[in-house]
């Protein structure tokens, strides 16, 4: 336990000092994006990993958060940072509606209903040009020129999200969530209001994902429906981050976020320009292959299967 807390302190110091030591905007950008994915992945994990409701439509909340921040600028003329506060709340309101419809469904049906929900929101955002500017997207002006403020905001958000979920899973609510995942009928018969707690889990998840969306709007300064409501690059990526890192583990999605963003960037930039150009054209293909690879070989993720990975690596070393 002592060794663990020392490790955490070292990790914390590294994260706090990172932008002061590494001045390259490119690497800072990668870490900021990874931190944003920590938030999305962790909130997806709360809903899917702990409560057993696998969502295929986290883009609903991400996109809603981003558009809340964007519309604040274009329609209300106030700073997009207000969106950080209200993006999460608006996402929760949307989450209530989504929950009302989707939470009467179980297992694969829930997954499909959220998938359809994500597509509906994407189509609304494309067609409701009066509010969202449609396919033109929303362009705002970044507040800071340096990446350092964004870095610390993302870091704070990621820490807050992971910490809230960590403490939540130690309370009674956390155990309610787990019992719903293991057996909803048994939980119901023990007197747990499963409808209420599934909604609670969905709302917390929606809140943090919405905040991440609003942060994305502030940081990237440009959104359009195909980006923030994307099925592949938001909803599926959220699932991947969760699965790669480890479903139903606290730090799994955090590890998964860094691995996924790293792998994606390595292939997108063709091994930082070393490999031939065609690799960067194939980065989406690699993404798909990675999905298949992870499901077949790492069903419980890096954190979940850590002992298995350690054993395999160790054995290889032994024989070498």
């Amino acid at each position, binding site marked *: 336990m002592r060794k663990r807390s020392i490790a955490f302190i070292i990790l914390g110091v590294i994260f706090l000092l990172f932008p002061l030591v590494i001045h390259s905007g490119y690497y800072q950008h990668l870490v900021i994006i990874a931190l944003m994915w920590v938030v999305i992945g962790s909130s997806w994990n709360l809903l899917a990993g702990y409560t057993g409701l696998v969502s295929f439509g986290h883009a609903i909340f991400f996109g809603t958060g981003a558009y809340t921040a964007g519309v604040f600028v274009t329609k209300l003329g106030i700073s997009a940072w207000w969106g950080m506060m209200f993006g999460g709340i608006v996402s929760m309101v949307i989450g209530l509606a989504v929950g009302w*419809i989707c939470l009467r469904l179980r297992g*694969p049906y829930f*997954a499909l209903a959220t998938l359809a*929900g994500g*597509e509906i929101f994407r*189509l609304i955002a494309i067609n409701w040009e009066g509010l969202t500017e449609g396919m033109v997207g929303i362009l705002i002006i970044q507040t800071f020129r340096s990446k350092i403020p964004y870095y610390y905001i993302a870091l704070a958000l990621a820490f807050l999200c992971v910490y809230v979920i960590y403490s939540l899973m130690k309370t009674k609510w956390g155990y309610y969530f787990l019992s719903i995942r293991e057996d909803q009928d048994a939980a119901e018969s023990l007197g747990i209001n499963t409808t209420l707690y599934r909604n609670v889990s969905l709302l917390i998840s929606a809140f943090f994902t919405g905040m991440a969306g609003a942060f994305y709007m502030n940081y990237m300064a440009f959104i359009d429906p195909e980006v923030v409501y994307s*099925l592949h690059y938001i909803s599926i990526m959220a699932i991947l981050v969760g699965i790669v890192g480890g479903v139903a583990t606290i730090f799994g999605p955090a590890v998964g976020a860094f691995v996924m963003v790293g792998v994606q960037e390595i292939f997108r930039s063709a091994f930082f320009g070393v490999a031939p150009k065609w690799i960067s054209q194939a980065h989406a*293909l690699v993404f*798909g292959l990675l999905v298949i690879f992870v499901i077949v070989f790492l069903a419980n993720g890096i954190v979940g299967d850590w002992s298995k990975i350690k054993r395999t690596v160790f054995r290889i070393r032994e024989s070498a």
Partner: protein
Amino acid sequence: MVVFLQTIVAGVLIGGIYSLIGIGMSLIMGVMGIINLAHGQLMMVAMYITFVLSHYMSIDPYLSLLVTMPALFLLGCFLQKFLLNPLMKKESVLPENQVLMTVGIAMVLAEIARFIFSSDYKTVKTSYSSSAFFLGNISFNVPMCIAFVFSIAFTLVLFWFLLRTDMGRSIRATAQDKDAATLMGVNSSRITIITFGLGSSLTAAAGSLLIPIFYLFPDIGGPFTLKAFVITILGGLGSTVGAIFGGLVLGIAESLGATYIGMGYKEMVGFVIFLLVLVFLPGGLKRLTKV
């Protein structure tokens, strides 16, 4: 009135083809209990095969059914045998791994197509592509009508297969109760492989039939996958008869939506129906017949 009738005719014609796609997915859903989210992408593969055959060897798209259906049958069997079936034995926290696997397969197929053919739009031109005939004031697009007739023929053959042959009976038995079927001596893992192949070849047929009408590009699969699962839910999961009506309902609804609400909302109509069905009629159209 003419506009309305024309809209209905267009809806029924495209609905017939949607049914063909939906039946394939329903079969897979019924036997394996998972939604195959690579369904539209399998159709896309068939469309590219048709494109290659017609572009380089000038083979008629309808003749290429003889190639695409067996080819996709084999591809489907391969995917099921080596990627989906092994997952059944794996222990993991989430049961949705197989669905996610089909998403991965879908992405890989689309990206391979993009890699080979680039993102450009392709068309297959035939002499009858834009011809139409008239009944009264209503026009019937010829390739649509041919596709519709083919769809009905394939559906009838499928029903004959499911109802009259040994293999068809085994498929239905596995769909009803997998454990009982296994105890009766049905090799259920072989049945899942054949079912996936069958579903793929049906969607391949739909792909070859649609190609004279649609543009072809690597991302065409996605919308059709979503349509297929809307149909499957609409018809009642695993119900092949339901899928036929689901396809027709979706076709008509989309067509009405495009005429009376706006082209941009055409796709959304399907999803709204989907959500309404989930809320008010869980179990789909199947529910209406057997309460």
